[in-house]
């Protein structure tokens, strides 16, 4: 039940229904894309609450302006709308942290966003092998955007420990997710 992401209906038909005010079609699109879009927004913003609120606003706007829009690909439209809102938010906060050397963020994330949920489950189970505190530190830093000293204060440890734990978490991801990729490709071929 409720596994909306597995339902595949032509975007064009769905959007026509939404245009005519079909709430059910709107809900279906929402359920199909929401989690992916928030996760995508969060890789840019590193703030889950903000990511959720931005994605919700994109959907509210889609509904309000549905009659004016001519949408060919809902997926594409939503991705771009979310990405633009995120960029505006970053500009507004003026705290862009530009560390990606190859700048094409959408390209990379798009393949990821619509990757198999089996792969995502696998990634989850790998991350859950991280020791509890290391995982917590990684989450606080990457998902909530806290500074090292803020994390240190929150967990009552030294900033140096945070630094070391983050380093270990990265090493762990680099080593174990590489293994996963090999497995995935193996299955695909």
């Amino acid at each position: 039940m409720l596994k909306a992401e597995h339902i595949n209906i032509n975007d064009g038909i769905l959007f026509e229904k939404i245009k005519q005010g079909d709430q059910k079609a709107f809900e279906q699109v929402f359920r199909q894309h929401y989690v992916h879009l928030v996760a995508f927004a969060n890789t840019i913003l590193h703030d889950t609450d903000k990511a959720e609120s931005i994605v919700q606003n994109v959907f509210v706007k889609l509904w309000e302006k549905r009659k004016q829009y001519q949408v060919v690909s809902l997926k594409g439209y939503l991705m771009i709308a979310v990405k633009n809102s995120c960029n505006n938010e970053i500009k507004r906060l003026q705290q862009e942290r530009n560390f990606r050397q190859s700048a094409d963020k959408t390209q990379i994330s798009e393949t990821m966003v619509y990757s198999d949920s089996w792969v995502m489950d696998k990634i989850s189970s790998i991350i859950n092998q991280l020791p509890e505190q290391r995982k917590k530190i990684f989450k606080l830093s990457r998902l909530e955007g806290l500074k090292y000293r803020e994390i240190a204060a929150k967990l009552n440890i030294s900033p140096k420990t945070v630094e070391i734990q983050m380093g270990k978490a990265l090493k762990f991801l680099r080593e174990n997710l590489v293994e996963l990729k090999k497995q995935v490709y193996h299955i695909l071929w």
Partner: protein
Amino acid sequence: MAMKKFNKNIDWNLAGKVISGEASSREQIEFDLWLNKDNNINEWNKLLSEVEQAEYALTSESIDIERAWKSVRNKTTSKTIQTHKRYYLVAVAASIIILIGIFLFIDWHRTPQHLFTFSTQNLVEQVNLKDGSSVDLNRHSSISLPESFNTNKRTLELQGEAFFDIKRNEKIPFVIHTKHITIKVLGTSFNVKDYPNSDYSEVIVKTGIVEVIAHNDSLNKTLLNAGDKAIYNRETNQLTKTENKNINYLSWKTKDISFKKDKMTDAIKLLEEVYNVEISGTEELNPENEISATFEKNTIEHILSTINKSHSLNLEYKIKE
């Protein structure tokens, strides 16, 4: 092969600092030097994309799509305006009834103040009070309180379940009335459960000291410390104090759930309550089946798929409306 090379010459702590924006300008230069050597930039991009995948997976685990949908639905339906009006009318009606009730039975000798009522339907909501206290209201619960508290007592009425985090004020005690019990505190946090369709009322204290008094008998009372639980049996009028053993008593609010060798049937019942769902597929369940697992703010979807995988079950859920 490339990975090996990467492992050999990367400074992981520095990598972490660069990714988190914590690197000093000197460290950033050191990093840039490393990045421009050999094929390091490719390796670096791989690491970034793996970090991104990890973030992606962790974020998806903790999103509450039902809550999000309700919020979007509320902003996109014209119907909701009418519903709000209806809630408002119900709230006003309830306030008037409670006002009359209070006027007649409790505070009849005092000038009655206008009461405000907050009630929840299918969502858990937080109410912040003017004195700095906060109340988390579970589903289908309500509190009624005056616009501003008296100078000698802070009182409110509760129906259903709520978690109170009361701002300490030794001069002005906080008093909560339910239909069956009264709770007096100075400044603490605790959970109160008092649903009309149950035989019991329950208070569990998280921090501080709480006094619980049976409604019909002011001598029938007990003092609770942090970690204590009081159960009031409405039929026998018995008020019992025990040590609280239920670690999940706040899961309805925190969505943090921890099972330690719990019966699977009990675990499912708890999940149904916490996520407001009906779980099916329990027919093939062995009653002796136990579960040990910890879930932190996960979605019901994630939890059930984890349980299904680890226990070879086919549990499914449906939202209760």
